[in-house]
């Protein structure tokens, strides 16, 4: 499984309140979350997320368990998130909704092309390559099905 996108750099400890604020949660309309993603950090960011690979600092997705955070990113067209570490609930949520998350400590320059090969375990950013721990077969299955819901249905 290979994912590709354009690098978008972010700092460490990006919490789920930053990704999608609590005030936008009470709706089933996923476009609401897309519209307001990262609003409190940079209100101009949401329309520019399509096709991006977020490369962030440590502890991405910390804070609340809100799955809307992972959903907002996926629905915005974000291809995946690369960070040295993730908060564990966000990490599980991302896999479960089919958003690739990659643990890797790498140098980010915005705008560079990024490729992550999740089976081989290699991330390439511009000219630089990094080895990563390949995801488990179960995680890859869930991701390639598009999430746990689809995975569950396909098994029945």
């Amino acid at each position, binding site marked *: 499984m290979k994912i590709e996108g354009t690098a978008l750099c972010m700092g460490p400890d990006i919490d789920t*309140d930053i990704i999608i604020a609590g005030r936008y949660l*009470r709706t089933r309309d996923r476009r609401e979350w897309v519209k307001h993603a990262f609003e*409190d950090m940079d209100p101009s960011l949401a329309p520019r997320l399509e096709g991006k690979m977020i490369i962030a600092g440590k502890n991405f997705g910390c804070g609340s368990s*809100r799955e809307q955070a992972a959903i907002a990113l996926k629905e915005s067209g974000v291809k995946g998130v690369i960070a040295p570490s993730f908060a*564990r*609930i966000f990490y599980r949520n991302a896999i479960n909704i089919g958003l690739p998350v990659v643990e890797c400590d790498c140098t980010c320059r915005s705008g560079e092309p990024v490729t992550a090969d999740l089976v081989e375990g290699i991330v390439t950013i511009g000219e630089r390559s990094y080895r990563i721990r390949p995801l488990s077969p179960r995680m890859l299955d869930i991701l390639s099905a598009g999430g746990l819901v689809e995975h569950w249905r396909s098994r029945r």
Partner: protein
Amino acid sequence: MNTLSESILGARAGSYVDCRVDRAYVHDGTGVLTLEAWKSMKAETIARPDRVYVLFDHIVPANNSVTAGLQHDLRSFAREKGLNFTDVGTGICHQLMGEGIALPGEIIVGADSHTCTLGAFGAFATGVGATDMAAIWAEGGTWFRVPETIGVNLSGSLSGQAEAKDLALTYVGRLTMDGATYMALEFVGDGVAALSIDSRMTLSNLAVETGAKAGLFYSDDVTRRYLREYGHNIGVQRPAECSYHRELNIDLEDVVPVVAIPPRVDTIKPVADLEGMPLDQVFVGTCTNGRFEDLARFAGIVRGRKVKVRTLIAPSSQKVLTRATESGILHELLKAGCTILPPGCGPCLGAHQGVLGEGEVCLSTANRNFRNRMGVGGEIYLASVATAAASALTGALESPEEAVR
């Protein structure tokens, strides 16, 4: 020898296990998404409805008709499927699960990050997302990676006006916001025995602020006594010699009243350093500090005086509110000029009942002070109940050491 997480999950740290879940709960927020995921799975049944809990606490009573509609659907579903259900005003999910439901040795998942609160009872309790929860509804179990454990060694006893919340903020400050990511915390040492269940719940509650998956206490005589009131006769869990990934030693004598400076929970300073900072709101409540012990402590400090800043108090459950009423504490809070909110999360997540305005500063007994959490442009300082009480009396950040004479 095993850590408590290893004993409960039945495998060594680092291994992956498939486990049956003893109790699974959602609230009105995460429940909506869980129901949606469960429906798209076309699962049709709930594996163990008697083990599933739907507890309304986040935006209760509903703040607008969209919320009301979402809650209506989830409420009807819970009733139709025979799930355990509590409606608006009953209390915060973690608190309710801690009122005689969570038991030592159990595996408990909640669709909320502060599910770790129930580690106070010697249960392995951790938060999951909505899709994970939907699969648990359908299958009755899930997978875990057995966590490594950080041993938090507590020695001595709290002194002066320092309370469990100060201790909790202190360990979060020492471990930092990702110092325990993927791991469990285990609170051990001779300082544990003197901590009440209310205090232990406060300590377990903040485990997730260090990135931890769980924050556990071994059940002991204090746990036994507490659960006996709810008709349970439990055994005690004895800590064995085990190898911790890391140990953190805290002498409780050294703990002083502290605040967490926004926007990070791990930026901790003694209250004394910021004394006199003007406040716009004081908020006492949440799954961290809205229990009876907390209300009683607050009332003990403000008794016979008036608060000088708007002060909101949200009891964490109906049981807490009832006890506060019967013991006369509620009356004292009212006489001091506090506003009482219904049992639930109140303004903690910035959705209603005390949202902050641009530039406002709130002193809160909650667990998170992230940017804009309680309202756009508002700032949240986290502190203990005693600090909140002392500060409410002057309208500015105040150390409880001086207010209590």
